[in-house]
């Protein structure tokens, strides 16, 4: 999953929710006209009793089908409640899923090509060891589950004018944004001058392996090299020279774990043309940035425009007040939830329990949390 988690859904929303669906204006007007009967609820609260997909306040979707791809990856087909506004191949989707009672937001690359006839969209998560959402999607989720859908995001996309020659370098689930680009190119009869260098542990681990192999068999202009790291080790930048001698002249797309990105993009910086390089980071696990433990960090209070530092034992609230921010406060012992603010980025440690949590929709009681590394909070 890309770790470029969006900052905010805008419009003063203090809680992460789905994207604004494209609803016919008459329908919005109709709902507004009966709101006096629903207050303090909104008409949508009652509409959702009939069908949660009809919500006009956020885009939701229903899982239609889950197709296993490999032993630990599966394609999840989702039907959006309202017309899907469309996406560019390579973009990712924020998706809100309830696992064991808790709402999680994750970002997955869209693996469906834009404009599918059945109106569905697809993601292809790979079950991350120790993860929460991806194992659930791959192994436990069933048809009929309702999810929240954000808008498609990301600039890991093909240029408007398709280049003559393309190079894709991917590893593991890094293939997911690339498959939708390849399908898009196939649909346009533009699958020529394309090289894909993909690394995975074994042939069975390659997500979309059979489809990729068939594509390369049918399209002479599509060259596929699979590198099985279990036997032959990782793909080195030097091997580019014989696998794709003209790599410098190609528009290149890198997609995989941080280590691969670092090695490869370093090579491009040294020996190639960095301007022709696009990349997307895929990080197995929770998708949270690594942070030093218990050492605190800088807190940026977004609405107050104040920055403060905590040594890891000073609560966010106290650090902010010392730095001059006017923050909501209450009991100062974690019981009253007056001081909560939404965590935009970074991780925090609960000073009472030591538990560390991340930014996916997290409402943080600033009086009993300290930053773990740098954080930004909407207060």
């Amino acid at each position, binding site marked *: 999953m890309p770790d470029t988690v969006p900052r905010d859904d805008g419009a003063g929303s203090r809680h992460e929710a789905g994207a604004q669906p494209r609803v016919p204006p008459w329908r919005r007007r109709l709902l507004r006209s009966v709101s006096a009967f629903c207050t303090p609820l909104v008409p949508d609260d009652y509409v959702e009793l009939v069908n949660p997909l009809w919500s006009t306040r956020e885009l939701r979707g229903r899982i239609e089908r889950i197709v296993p791809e490999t032993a630990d990856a599966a394609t999840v087909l989702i039907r959006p409640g309202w017309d899907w506004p469309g996406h560019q191949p390579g973009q990712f989707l924020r998706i809100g899923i309830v696992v064991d009672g808790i709402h999680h937001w994750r970002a997955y690359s869209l693996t469906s090509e834009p404009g599918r006839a059945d109106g569905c969209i697809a993601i292809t998560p790979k079950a991350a060891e120790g993860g929460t959402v991806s194992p659930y999607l791959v192994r436990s989720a069933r048809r009929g589950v309702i999810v929240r859908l954000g808008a498609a995001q990301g600039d890991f996309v093909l240029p408007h004018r398709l280049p003559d020659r393309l190079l894709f370098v991917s590893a593991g689930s890094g293939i997911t944004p690339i498959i939708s680009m390849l399908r898009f190119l196939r649909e346009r009869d533009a699958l020529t001058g394309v090289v894909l260098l993909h690394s995975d542990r074994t042939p069975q681990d390659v997500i979309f392996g059979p489809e990729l192999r068939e594509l390369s068999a049918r399209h002479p202009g599509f060259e596929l090299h699979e590198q099985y790291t279990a036997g032959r080790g990782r793909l080195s930048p030097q091997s580019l020279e014989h696998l794709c001698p003209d790599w410098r002249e190609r528009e290149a797309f890198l997609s995989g774990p941080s280590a691969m990105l670092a090695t490869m993009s370093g090579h491009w910086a040294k020996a190639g043309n960095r301007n022709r390089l696009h990349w997307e980071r895929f990080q197995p696990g929770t998708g949270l940035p690594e942070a030093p433990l218990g050492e605190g960090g800088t807190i940026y209070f977004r609405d107050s425009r104040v920055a403060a530092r905590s040594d890891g034992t000073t609560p966010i609230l106290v650090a902010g007040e010392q730095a001059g921010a006017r923050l909501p406060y209450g009991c100062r012992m974690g019981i*009253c939830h007056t001081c909560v603010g939404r965590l935009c980025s970074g991780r925090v440690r609960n000073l009472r329990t030591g538990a560390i949590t991340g930014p*996916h929709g997290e409402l943080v009681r600033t009086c009993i949390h300290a930053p773990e590394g740098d954080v930004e909070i909407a207060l």
Partner: protein
Amino acid sequence: MRTLQASPMPSTTPLPLARLSPDELDELARELDAIHEEIVADLGERDRRYITTLVKRHRQLVVLARLVLLASNRRPAWVAGTSLLSVAKILENMEIGHNVMHGQWDWMKDPQINSFVWDWDSASTPGAWKYAHNYVHHTYTNILGKDRDLGYAVMRVDAQQPWHAVYLLQPFYSVVLAAFFEWAVAVHDLDVGAIRRGEKPKTAAWQEVKGMAGKARRQIVKDYLAFPALSGRRGFKNTLKANATANVVRNLWAYMIIFCGHFPDQTYTFTQEEVADESRGAFYVRQLLGSANIDGSGLFHVMSGNLGYQVEHHLFPDMPSTRYAEIAPRVKELCARYGLPYNTGPLLKQFGAVQRTIVRLAFPGGT
């Protein structure tokens, strides 16, 4: 209500707070913290299903009640609709609204069911209510001069509150207070005294007043204009009466449950000196001594928002209410071990005690 100094039987009822050593208080805090952590770690799908189902049932009940009341000029429909609407409003205020706005369900990270965005079918705006209730009342529970819910600034429910001639009337106006409880709470949450003393910035106070006025208008339009109008010219008055009745029924019920939470004879009040530099353990003890439970069935506890577990609620205000019944035996056992009272009694006994206090303390003196 008892105060520590004016404890009725000092020889047989030693002051529980004074009897525990700081080490014992720390140990008590550790034990209670452990219960809290254990429950929080265990929260999951079962809990989520409970609250989402309840929210759904409430909305279905509202739709049903409002539909039945379209025919409110027929007597049976009026009775059935009013009853359904009363039950819906009680559920919405107590087991859903109060608890959601406490942050009891924030752990779900649900975009809709959380203390940040929730609004309830009551006159108070969530912002003002959360400040007055979650912060002021739950932090300074039963501290004289700090807990504004101690008699709600208009009643004398503790002998330590100085007497005033106006309290002679409190047995009467407490009935009015009960019937219009939601409006009383809304005015109370505004804290007009603080505005007058200039403790609130003018702009903030104005924002709050405007918020309350807007909320009041929407509430009034809904129950006393929009829905009555839907019943047509002949049904207008009947539906209006039905809605008013449902609101009053809900108010009376909420008043009963809430007054039984802190004002029965078994509970203590505290002076500000007593709780200066209070440890976490002492905070817990104050909550234990200042709250009283109500015995009842499962249905009773749902209808009272689990405030029959007032003791557990005051120990852990942000724990999902459904878990209070589960931890109650452990809290009770812990109280026995530390020699602390665990206050509880049947509804009518508790409410009788409260009413007796209200009548007795209308006159000077009292214990």
